[in-house]
């Protein structure tokens, strides 16, 4: 890993966005058996009311979020567990938290030089869409929206420089 370049600068230089998209796509393909589709411009603006968050610390610091509607998160949980098994909100929150955790892990595992020096927090899930996200990360953010069964899933990575 380069030590003379901030992690945020490295994210720009190495263009991490496609890596983040690939990490998201792989998690959905492997764990849900579903292929995500790219979103059009209008779908990029669609907000969600449930957000999974995982913190990164160490050689890369920041927060990764996965945001979607409750309907989408419920569909995700049903794909992961089977429709008959998803009986409570807890399953839906837990499933989205695990998706977020796996996207973060898969993403950092694809970056060269992280070798155990970037750690992940346990996931947190926020419900409700009436909030504003103010990250104190000063290294900019990467964000992409993809469609799961025509419903938007937004993944965002805010980095500290």
């Amino acid at each position, binding site marked *: 890993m380069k030590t003379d370049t901030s992690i945020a600068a490295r994210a720009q230089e190495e263009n991490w966005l496609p890596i983040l998209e690939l990490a998201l796509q792989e*998690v959905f393909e*492997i764990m849900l058996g579903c292929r995500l589709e790219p979103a059009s411009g209008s779908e990029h603006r669609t907000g969600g009311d449930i957000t999974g968050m995982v913190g990164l610390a160490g050689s890369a610091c920041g927060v990764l979020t996965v945001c979607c509607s409750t309907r989408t998160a419920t569909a995700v949980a049903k794909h*992961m567990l089977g429709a008959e098994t998803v009986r409570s909100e807890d399953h839906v929150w*837990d499933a989205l938290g*695990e998706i977020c955790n796996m996207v973060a*892990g*898969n993403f950092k595992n694809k970056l060269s030089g992280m070798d155990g*020096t970037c750690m*992940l927090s*346990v996931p947190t899930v926020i419900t409700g869409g009436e909030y504003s996200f103010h990250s104190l990360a000063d290294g900019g953010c990467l964000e992409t929206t993809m469609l799961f069964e025509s419903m938007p899933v937004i993944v965002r990575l805010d980095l500290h420089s």
Partner: protein
Amino acid sequence: MNKIRALIVDDSSVMRKIIERSLRQAGLDLEKIVEAGNGAEALGVLRDNPVDLILCDINMPVMDGLEFVRQIGTVESAKGVPIVMITTEGSESHVVQALSAGARGYIRKPFTPDQVKEHVLPVLEKALEKKS
């Protein structure tokens, strides 16, 4: 293969169910599944429930998976039981730490049922052979 008793340690109940399903899809005849949400809870579960196989996450609250593997020798009935880590932590240093601590296998999340089969069955067969 004999009927198997397994312990699944993960702070996500969803992931515990997925791992259990993957074990069944791998063809294991599961006599009993016990679960724990972190390493400390798992040590307690093991004291009352002898098992043949342990699958364990790394990033968990209270006690993480690596510490659990280091402390498992404190439970007499769990000595020699094979542990396979299933985790998002995919770096070489984590793999080395886990294997050095005593884990016998390592699966990175996201995983397929085939990967569970590929990593768990040889480890389990070897442990059962040694036991018999």
